[in-house]
């Protein structure tokens, strides 16, 4: 392993790190998700049984994490495209990252009830 290569690149580096980590996580979920959907070719019961685990409170929290990863990866991906193709992109990359973070926070607050609402009702009663 190379030693002493911590590159203190601030916003540019950390958004790059977060883009990688979220990308790898999403890819692994996608693999599992295609496998679970393939159960519709086995039987309705097999599919419904696996989908039932997606409706448990613990997995609902993981879904919220998945939504967080996808939203960041999508918004930061649009920022990367702007940096690459928009003439003012490289100069405004930091401002665009903070814009991404703000939009991400707003959407995450908006996703709280739709994604975690049924889990909360199950845990604490309606």
């Amino acid at each position, binding site marked *: 392993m190379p030693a002493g290569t911590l590159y203190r690149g601030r916003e540019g580096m950390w958004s790059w790190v977060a883009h*990688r980590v979220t*990308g*790898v996580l*999403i*890819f692994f979920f*996608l*693999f599992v998700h*295609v*496998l679970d*959907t*393939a159960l*519709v*070719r086995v*039987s*309705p*019961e097999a*599919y*419904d049984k696996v*989908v039932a685990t*997606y*409706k448990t409170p613990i997995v*609902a929290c993981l*879904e919220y994490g998945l*939504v967080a990863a*996808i*939203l960041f990866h*999508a918004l930061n*991906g*649009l920022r*990367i*495209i702007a940096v*690459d*193709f928009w003439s003012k992109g490289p100069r405004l990359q930091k401002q665009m990252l903070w814009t991404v973070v703000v939009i991400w926070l707003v959407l995450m607050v908006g*996703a709280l009830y*739709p*994604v975690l*609402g*049924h889990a909360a009702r199950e845990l604490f009663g309606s």
Partner: protein
Amino acid sequence: MSAETSSAAAIGEVEGVSLYDTDHPAPLIEAPRKRTKKTPKSTRTNFELYGWLFMRLSGIVLVVLVLGHLLIQLVLDGGVSKIGFAFVAGRWASPFWQIWDLTMLWLAMLHGANGLRTVINDYAQRDNTRFWLKMLLYTATVFTVLLGTLVIFTFDPNIR
């Protein structure tokens, strides 16, 4: 330099005789970097450029497809609690959603596989490790894309 030292007579008998004349021309020496028929075919292509471009183009399409998918599956009409075999059957009755899901599957898998290829190239330092990790990645990718495509095209709502 005087005129005498640069003239042929000043060099002496042996050095002054030219080996070449109009009947015996000097051999042509190629320019150092000139590409000839003997030059090996370059293995360099623009693959990485097209990969880079694909990530951006597929990314824009995926933002629409995936966020739409999340909205339908996790937010609208009761969120995840409505999902079941009947819900899938209802959506795949329409060719529009079949094409939506098929495009999303192919673009997301290729986008993700290319991303992971970059990550493997960056962090796996031994040649063997890098090779086998990528073989594993390509195998899993081809398997997943083909399985997903098969499921979308052969879906049978009356399986039971």
